[in-house]
């Protein structure tokens, strides 16, 4: 049974300068999204079918009072009214989600570093209610937190700096940015962020989600067109919807789809009047957190320049995590920050803080300072958090006089490459780019989602699992986030446990276990591994 490598896009080193779409990549861009094996897809549907049938059965039992009903119901006298608790819309939650609910919302009672402590919970009524036993599960290896550079720590220079600032400024700001909440810490931080990104000016906000959802409405409005990637984050989707612009979705990371949409938009104009669009804004992310893929930024920038559209780049997961200097996806591809009109990012992931920023030209940022909802109505960033970001950003840039930042960046790249290589060798199906620290491992079947989460916790490893409808119906996954703070021993422990659980649950679905043949010298035995 020969197997073809499906959906692997590889640019070999020789073909680099020869390019893709006339655009040169300065490094190999290797992404793979292996297709679901057909047998696994059929079994997944069977799994969902069985769960649905049992869900109907349980609903029937609850209706006839044979089984105790834990969910909210209307009172007897209100049964004829318009339903308040939409029964069918709750079907998935009460029949599927509730059964495996213990894999989510686990309370953490330590700093979410490479190892963390979890509160031990137990449920006596099948996850409807949880009780804390009073014990704490200690030293669980944390493979789920967005801690790419390991700045989520409660000791060290960043934490001490933040503590000092707490003593000086307190914790709350008690005002919005435009009123009394504009501290000198914010000004200092904004200048530092602008310098870090290489843009003229930057503005910071207290919440990363709110940065997207409150600023896109300030940038586009009715009569504008937003071209958004299929798998954009909810904050971008919400911001686009709130703005009132027309939204068109292009296939994930697919430049042909984007170009077709751009051409159609420019040629046909607005839907009925055919007037030209006021603005076309392309919204993409640096690293997509559920797929682990990196945006094809050189091609997007080439398209944007050719068709004169604007580009909004959300670097929530990529800032600090990609690139030799931690400058994000622009640094990774070696591109000019002036090509991207609006650079947005968050401080939650690589800086161990909270909040978001937008960087760009001075006129844009001055406009946002007055027009953004977040600036006018939302509380500004808390001073210890601002100090944490200042300290960690200086550390990454090397301005604090140590080489800690460079070390961490190097460690993250090394950990990413190692983890991905080992997982692929073990036979798991992994999505995403070879350089991205977000690693989704496919599980596919609904029961395995719950089983995987629980088995990993039994062996002291905390993971994040995701299922339908958060992902497409046959693509449930466990998502790992590698951190620079993970030592080689931790990764090795995690990998051996993963291999054990993978064998137990039979999630090692990959049908090509070796490196793509392009990377190996050809000899007679090189195709033997490809046949199972």
């Amino acid at each position: 049974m020969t197997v073809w490598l499906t959906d692997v896009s590889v640019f070999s080193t020789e073909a680099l300068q020869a390019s893709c779409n006339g655009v040169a990549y300065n490094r190999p861009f290797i992404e793979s999204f292996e297709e679901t094996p057909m047998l696994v897809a059929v079994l997944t549907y069977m799994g969902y079918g069985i769960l649905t049938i049992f869900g109907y059965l349980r609903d029937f039992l609850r209706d006839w009072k044979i089984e105790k009903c834990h969910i909210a119901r209307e009172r007897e006298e209100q049964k004829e009214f318009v339903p308040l608790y939409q029964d069918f819309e709750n079907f998935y939650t009460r029949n599927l989600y509730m059964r495996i609910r213990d894999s989510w919302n686990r309370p953490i009672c330590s700093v979410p570093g490479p190892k963390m402590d979890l509160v031990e919970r137990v449920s006596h009524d099948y996850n409807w209610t949880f009780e804390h036993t009073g014990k704490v599960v200690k030293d669980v290896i944390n493979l789920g937190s967005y801690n790419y550079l390991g700045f989520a720590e409660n000791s060290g220079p960043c934490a001490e700096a933040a503590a000092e600032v707490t003593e000086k400024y307190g914790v709350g700001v008690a005002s919005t940015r435009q009123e009394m909440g504009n501290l000198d810490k914010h000004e200092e931080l904004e200048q530092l962020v602008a310098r870090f990104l290489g843009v003229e000016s930057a503005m910071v906000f207290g919440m990363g989600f709110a940065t997207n959802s409150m600023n896109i409405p300030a940038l586009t409005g009715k009569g504008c067109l937003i071209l958004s990637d299929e798998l954009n984050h909810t904050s971008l989707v919400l911001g686009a919807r709130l703005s009132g612009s027309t939204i068109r979705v292009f296939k994930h990371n697919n430049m042909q789809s984007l170009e077709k949409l751009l051409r159609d938009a420019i040629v046909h104009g607005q839907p009925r009047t055919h007037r030209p669009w006021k603005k076309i804004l392309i919204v993409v992310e640096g690293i997509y957190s559920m797929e682990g893929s990196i945006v094809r930024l050189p091609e997007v920038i080439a398209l944007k320049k050719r068709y004169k559209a604007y580009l909004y780049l959300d670097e929530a997961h990529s800032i600090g995590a990609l690139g030799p200097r931690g400058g994000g996806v622009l640094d990774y591809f070696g591109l000019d920050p002036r090509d991207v009109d609006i650079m947005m990012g968050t401080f939650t992931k690589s800086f161990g803080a909270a909040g978001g920023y937008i960087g760009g030209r001075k006129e844009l940022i001055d406009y946002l300072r007055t027009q953004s909802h977040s600036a006018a109505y939302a509380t500004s960033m808390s001073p210890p958090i601002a100090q944490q970001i200042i300290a960690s950003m200086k550390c990454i840039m090397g301005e604090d006089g140590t080489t800690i930042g460079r070390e961490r960046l190097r460690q993250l790249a090394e950990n990413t490459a190692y983890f991905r290589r080992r997982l692929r060798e073990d036979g798991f199906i992994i999505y995403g780019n070879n350089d991205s620290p977000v690693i989704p491992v496919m599980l596919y079947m609904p029961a395995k989602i719950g089983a995987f989460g629980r088995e990993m916790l039994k062996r002291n490893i905390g993971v994040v699992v995701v299922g339908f409808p958060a992902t497409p119906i046959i693509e449930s996954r466990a998502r790992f986030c590698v951190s620079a703070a993970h030592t080689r021993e931790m990764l090795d422990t995690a990998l051996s446990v993963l291999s054990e659980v993978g064998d137990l649950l039979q999630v090692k679905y990959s049908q090509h276990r070796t490196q793509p043949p392009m990377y190996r010298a050809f000899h007679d035995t090189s195709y033997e591994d490809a046949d199972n």
Partner: protein
Amino acid sequence: MNVGTAHSEVNPNTRVMSSRGIWLSYVLGIGLLHVILLSIPFVSVPVVWTLTNLIHNMCMYIFLHTVKGTPFETPDQGKARLLTHWEQMDYGVQFTASRKFLTITPIILLPFRAIMNNNSILIDGRAKAGSQLSKPEDSGALCPLGADQENPPAVRGWLDVMARLVRPLQYSSHGLTRWYFLTSFYTKYDKVHFVINTVSLLTVLIPKLPQLHGVRLFGINRY
């Protein structure tokens, strides 16, 4: 449920029937049902085929044309709450691949069942001379969709194929008849089967017509 989702798809239900492997799973599911019914003792093969047809059509009617809304919350502010799964498929775009597939499957099941029933009855050896019909177009009984069919070439093509498959059998039993639907009026037993199956097929095919998108007859299933 854009809350907690990793994509911007408003209603994931619309994409389920075009996902990878679902058509195969569907066909395998029908096969499984048939095998389960075949394993019931004391039930003859034509009855099993009719039962498969009936149960499949009933389940299809319930899950595609009766159950409304989505089993999870969607951010479309309730637009899909009053729509059945058939109406939600592909956001209401007609004649997509999945819709064609789901329309053709019960139709194929009917001639299969008809052939199988006829085969088993022919084996029993009941021969009767039947009258010859003038034209196939007059035979409204076996074209359940009537004049304006949504897939006239496909449906008629399949019927032709089935008829041609059965023709040798017809000629072997009696030379005069030409169309296989006649054989189903052979004996009273088979006539009953055929009527039941066609009625069941109609209940599944009529709601799929694009003219009946969003239509609720007599207020049944409106809210």
